[in-house]
């Protein structure tokens, strides 16, 4: 084409595309690695090289997709250099790949997040094993990489200027005797995805498409072309095509050859890791399973199990991993940081003996193979729950220090384009106005439930946009293309990878936004695919609450609580659970859990394990909830789906509830091997799993047919298994969570002041707003004291009065008051008590006027003088203290004058409390209107139990939660709070459609409907809503989970 000479070309040439860029070049490519590989397979391209910009984030996905498609995946990177150019580098060998990773790590770690460039000296330092594609005539490249490792890259995109550049490159290659290499500089798999690339280009340059001009692609030629097309384009330079194959043959490295090794644990002299692990486990076993007359059988079983596990651990050479996790747990213990293993590790008796988990896998008969199996050839996965916040950060920093900055790092989290972000970015690029963007963004479903009648076209039409409008239609196309493309790299909340030697030779490391953190360029799934072992250090708000509670109990109750030795089967705990009195408790406090608890009526620990696992989309969609509850209540006979499943499902009354059960079911009914069952598990939890689930379904069916299982039963089994794709708990995980749930319930029942204080100090967390937690605690008899500048700390504290413990609210609840100011108040107060508001203002210069105003408005300054005053009087004085007096009068006390303002009324105090602290310790807003509500026939929440099933009822309150879960077929659930408690209402889809505005736009509602009072589960089936004008401010509603 380009040349003035026409030549024939060999259509059967093999061409390897050695320069593709995926969407992992973040806004510089518009196809995923999978799309590129799929297209390459369609075009019979035998190998493909992916070179993203300064990263290998897409490499694992590229490698896995290529493996599946039977294509060779070459890894490379386009490295930015300080001279302003980008060097396309391909890894020829493992050394080359390691050099590439080290080079990127070096340049990234010294720069800000998202920046960094290598110096020419660094390119030379890390040049071994790399091939450079010279895209400009520069002899320095030959000096750095050697003539044998430089290919002069030619690209032809039907561009006049590019051809002039190519001529210079050809001359350069001829004069230096370098081989020519044809590439297409692919940025998108197909010509159609060029449009998405143009949009991403605009996003990257922060311009609209109308302003972008020459920033956009000149044409759509940077797509994946086959050998025939490329041979025709390079008909005048056939060697440039032939060289692609030659170079591809040279590139021996793939990610299968990563060379990852987990670090060895330093053991005492004379010990091996295996022997040391045996010692540690034996010591732990003695503590955990102290044999006596009652436990002899259990101890024997435990010992046998431990020996079995240790043998497997030794065989798989995993002793180092267990010791490292044990070491982290020991560090936590030594620092008094609460820690508990969760996930499949809780299936292991070794983990239990080492103190990594708190669940006795032997006593609970948990499936060890779920955690570790020889067949799977995969690393085990141990997740550690830690108190969220500073404590978790301390553990993370400990791991960094122990294994070095280049030996440990957090896993990345690839942030992809989601509904709203895609809408916003595309809309801005297409030049939509801000109001239009808002309207379109509002169309993106943000709640779980989506009406099946909803199509993008219909939604757009209803919002006043015509899908026939070319721009809108283009918008819709782009939305479908761009959704789910990677946007940028974030940091996973807790996953850490550790490596023997240098982690930076396995994967490049980058600085995280948070100082002191280092992140690898791969996400959690990629690490699993690449066989890299990781430890999840997860922050759990409730762990922080438990830890704080223990401290508060020690200080205020003068008692020592050991969570590992809480009294089992505490009647108060089970009574509270059976009554669904669970606000603030871990995992069992949600509306759905509360509606299930009175039916399940937990009586022992295993019931809590079931309770935690059952309210999940998996069991709900799999229609397992109701059969289980009916069987539990004795209304239905426990029956297994098939006699083969009897041993697996017996203890859950014939209903599969846990992941382990489903895996075993697959093994028994469809002859799955352990490895296949594990594949099934990963497909369940895997976000890109739709296609994999379908493959597995086919295999399940054929296995069941072989075993002669009737078609109807097959359907039920398939339904049970595939519904877990949405979400299902492993039994071990549920057991770990149930322990925390039990501990939280125990503390709430016995140490309410400490538990509530700890809960309030660790917000935001859980299902309810602090206002609801306070009201619930008050209904349980706990007293609160207001925020007071003479008494409060930054956090809530416990005070003793008349032999009772009261909770004093802390400054952290004053909206807009900075912690720095609060600390300054505390320091000044420690030196001498404040004598007046003026004194406070003088001695705490950090106090801003808005902060002082807030403190006076919520009554925090009422007790600053000897004779307590009211809020308005404090406001009057505060305003004077705010006004600068000048140096002359700074020490002069203001002349006392009578304050002229009227005290706040009760409703004014209430509004002020909600406005400035989002909660009140005074009366509930509904209490002020009870008389009027009584005349309207409104039943308080605590009286609903007296209304018979099916009777009409009218209730009212503040809406604290509106929830429309994806599993509930369009039903809306409301939680309504009044001064007597929390009640629930359910809204049918037709009622919701009719009353939508009233329900969504009002904080207080009167609800009329029919009482559903079954098995002590109380729900109002709402038929009509009316707004209720109670207070200007309200408890913030927790909407649309």
């Amino acid at each position, binding site marked *: 084409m380009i040349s003035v000479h026409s030549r024939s070309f060999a259509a059967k040439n093999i061409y390897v595309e050695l320069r593709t860029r995926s969407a992992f070049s973040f806004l510089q490519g518009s196809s995923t690695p999978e799309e590129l590989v799929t297209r390459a397979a369609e075009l019979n391209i035998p190998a493909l090289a992916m070179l993203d910009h300064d990263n290998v984030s897409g490499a694992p996905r590229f490698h896995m997709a290529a493996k599946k498609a039977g294509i060779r995946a070459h890894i490379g990177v386009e490295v930015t250099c300080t001279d302003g150019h980008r060097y396309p580098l391909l890894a020829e060998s493992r050394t080359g790949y390691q050099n590439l990773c080290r080079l990127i790590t070096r340049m990234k770690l010294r720069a800000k997040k998202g920046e960094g460039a290598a110096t020419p000296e660094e390119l030379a330092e890390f040049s071994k094993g790399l091939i450079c594609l010279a895209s400009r005539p520069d002899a320095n490249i030959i000096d750095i990489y050697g003539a044998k490792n430089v290919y002069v890259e030619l690209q032809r995109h039907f561009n*006049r200027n590019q051809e002039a550049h190519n001529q210079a490159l050809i001359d350069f290659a001829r004069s230096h005797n370098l081989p020519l290499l044809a590439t297409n500089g692919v940025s998108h798999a197909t010509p159609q995805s060029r449009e998405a690339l143009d949009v991403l280009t605009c996003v990257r340059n922060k311009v609209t498409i109308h*302003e972008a001009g020459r920033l956009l692609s*000149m*044409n759509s030629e940077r797509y994946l072309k086959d050998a025939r097309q490329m041979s025709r384009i390079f008909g005048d330079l056939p060697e440039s095509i032939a060289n692609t194959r030659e170079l591809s043959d040279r590139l021996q490295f793939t990610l299968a050859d990563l060379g990852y090794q987990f670090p060895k644990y330093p053991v005492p002299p004379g010990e091996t890791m295996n022997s040391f692990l045996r010692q540690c486990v034996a010591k732990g076993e003695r503590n955990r399973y102290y044999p006596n007359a009652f436990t002899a059988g259990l101890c024997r079983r435990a010992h046998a199990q431990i020996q079995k596990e240790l043998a497997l651990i030794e065989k798989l050479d995993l002793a180092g991993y267990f010791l490292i996790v044990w070491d982290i747990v020991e560090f936590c213990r030594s620092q008094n940081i609460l820690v508990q293993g969760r996930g499949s590790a809780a299936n292991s008796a070794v983990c239990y003996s080492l103190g990594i988990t708190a669940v006795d896998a032997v006593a609970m008969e948990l499936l060890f193979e779920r955690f570790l199996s020889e067949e799977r050839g995969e690393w085990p996965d141990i997740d550690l729950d830690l108190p969220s916040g500073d404590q978790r950060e301390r553990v993370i920093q400990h791991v960094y220090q122990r294994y070095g900055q280049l030996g440990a790092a957090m896993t990345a989290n690839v942030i992809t384009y989601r509904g709203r972000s895609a809408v916003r970015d595309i809309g801005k690029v297409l030049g939509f106005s801000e109001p239009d963007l808002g309207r379109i963004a509002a169309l993106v479903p943000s709640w779980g439930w989506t009406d099946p009648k909803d199509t993008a076209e219909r939604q757009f039409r209803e919002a006043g946009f015509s899908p026939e409008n070319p721009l809108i239609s283009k918008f819709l196309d782009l939305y479908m293309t761009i959704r789910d493309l990677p946007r940028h790299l974030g940091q996973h909340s807790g996953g850490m990878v550790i490596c023997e030697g240098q982690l930076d030779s396995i994967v490049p490391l980058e600085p995280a936004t948070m100082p002191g953190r280092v992140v690898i360029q791969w996400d959690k799934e990629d690490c699993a695919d690449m066989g890299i072992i990781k430890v999840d250090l997860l922050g759990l708000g409730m762990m922080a609450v438990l830890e704080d509670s223990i401290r508060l109990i020690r200080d205020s109750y003068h008692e020592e609580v050991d969570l590992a030795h809480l009294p089992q089967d505490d009647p108060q705990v089970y009574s509270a659970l059976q009554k669904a009195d669970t606000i603030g408790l871990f995992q069992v406090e949600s509306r759905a859990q509360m509606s299930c608890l009175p039916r399940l009526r937990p009586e022992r620990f295993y019931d809590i394990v079931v309770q935690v696992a059952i309210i999940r989309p998996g069991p709900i969609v799999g229609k397992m909830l109701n059969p289980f509850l009916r069987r539990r209540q004795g209304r239905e006979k426990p029956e297994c789906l098939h006699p083969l499943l009897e041993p697996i499902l017996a203890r859950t009354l014939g209903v599969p509830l846990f992941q382990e059960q489903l895996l075993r079911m697959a093994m028994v009914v469809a002859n799955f091997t352990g490895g296949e069952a594990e594949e099934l598990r990963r497909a369940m939890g895997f976000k890109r799993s739709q296609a994999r689930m379908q493959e597995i379904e086919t295999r399940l069916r054929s296995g069941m047919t072989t075993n002669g299982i009737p078609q109807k039963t097959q359907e039920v089994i398939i339904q049970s298994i595939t519904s877990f794709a949405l979400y299902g708990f492993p039994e071990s995980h549920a057991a770990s969570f149930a322990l925390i749930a039990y501990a939280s319930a125990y503390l709430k029942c016995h140490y309410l002041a400490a538990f509530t204080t700890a809960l309030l100090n660790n917000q935001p967390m859980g299902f309810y707003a602090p206002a609801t937690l306070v009201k619930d605690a008050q209904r349980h008899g706990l007293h609160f004291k207001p925020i007071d500048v003479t008494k409060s700390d930054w956090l809530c504290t416990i005070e003793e009065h008349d032999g009772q413990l009261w909770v004093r609210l802390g400054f952290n609840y004053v909206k807009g008051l900075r912690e720095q100011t609060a600390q300054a108040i505390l320091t000044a107060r420690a030196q001498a008590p404040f004598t007046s508001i003026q004194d406070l203002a003088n001695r705490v210069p950090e106090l801003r006027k808005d902060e002082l*105003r807030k403190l006076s408005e919520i009554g925090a300054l009422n007790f600053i003088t000897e004779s307590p005053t009211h809020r308005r009087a404090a406001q009057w004085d505060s305003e004077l203290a705010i006004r600068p007096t000048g140096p002359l009068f700074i020490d002069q006390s203001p002349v006392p*004058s009578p304050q*002229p303002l009227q005290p706040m009324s009760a409703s004014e105090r209430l509004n002020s409390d909600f406005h400035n602290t989002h909660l009140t310790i005074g009366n509930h807003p509904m209490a002020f209107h009870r008389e009027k509500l009584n005349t309207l026939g409104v039943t308080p929440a605590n009286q609903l139990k007296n209304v018979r099933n099916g009777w009409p009822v009218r209730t009212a309150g503040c809406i604290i939660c509106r929830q429309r879960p994806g599993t509930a077929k369009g039903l809306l659930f409301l939680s309504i709070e009044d001064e007597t408690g929390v009640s629930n209402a359910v809204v049918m889809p037709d009622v919701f459609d009719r009353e939508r505005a009233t329900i969504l736009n009002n904080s207080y509602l009167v609800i009329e409907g029919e009482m559903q009072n079954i098995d002590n589960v109380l729900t109002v089936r709402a038929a009509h809503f009316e707004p209720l004008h109670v207070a200007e401010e309200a408890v913030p509603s927790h909407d649309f989970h």
Partner: protein
Amino acid sequence: MFACIHSPEADLSAIAEAFSPSFEQTAPGTIVFKIDALRRLYTTHQQIAQAIIKKAGPDANVAIAETADAAILAAHNFRGISISPNLQQLNIASLPMEQEMWEVLESWGIHTLAQLAALPETGIAERFGPAGVHLQRLARGATERPLKIFKPEITYADRISLDHPVSLLEPLLFLIARILNDQCEKLLSHAMSANEITIHLELEDKSEHIRTLRLPVPMRESKSLLKLLQMDLEAHPPQAATQALSVTIKPVHPRTIQAGIFLPITPAPDKLELTLARIRGIVGESNVGTPELLNTHHPHPFQMSKHQPPATSHQPPTIRQAFRYFRPPLPAKIDLQNHRPTRIASPGITGKIQTAAGPWRTTGDWWTTQPWNRDEWDITLSNNSLYRIYREPTNLWFIEGTYD
């Protein structure tokens, strides 16, 4: 006593002028003036208010009060006529104050003017300073101040209505010249110039003909302005006879530039503009000016923009091969072999193609209803002439131009 008229619709200055020569325009839609002198014409305040509202229309609010500020407050807050009304129950939001002060007063439970008025003055002064004291006086109706007398802006717009429609340009220009002479004198006396002139012709067929000339340099010579208008009207004549005309000038401060001593002499800006206007009249508006390169890959990446005197530049001009566009492009018949052009036939340009480089492909504007997509080739013929040819998506070939 003061009267205040509040109406967002009516032309209040004209109404106020009917009652008082001096008045204050407090805000757009609010005017206040003294009415003591009107007591000689009207017996009661009620009569004065009624006379005002008769002129201002039924939608206006008219208030009469002791002080100007009280009258303004009343006119803003009471509908129709109000004579010395009780302002004490008004919400404090009706007072002009900053958001922060309003928030503080609200949080104190102070919602009405009466509540604000009742607070101790010293306390207010200590907490809010002079602004607070002023506000409290407003609330008490105790402010006294002179009016800020309204001075109308000088306008440069004149209109002539004709008894008989004029259909010829010459008599029309005579009328325009009259207006322009007056306006240019006014410009001179106020030391101003014009950078935009608009002529508005009301035509016999009830339509309008509006022409606006934006001048590259501010001018105030009536002759030059007239000549520019004349050429513009010749190029864009009205479709019917003119019944009325108005000329509006946008005044700006004149530009004073001292030319560089070593710079070549250029024509006077007004003369240059006249010359360009003449050329525009001949070749059409879109064909005169300075070519401006557009930020696009589009095959026609430039537009003609208004001529601007070139800024002095010390950069040496870059030497590039020039391309001469054929306008319009010449249709051609092209023979192809292996997808490559081999022969061209077009009036005046015919022969075997010696060499062809291409295709050079551009596509773009895919988000519009007019996306483009074309392949270009550079070809040489036996006489060594070098042409650019292109193919439209319709498969028609054209010669776009030649390389110099």
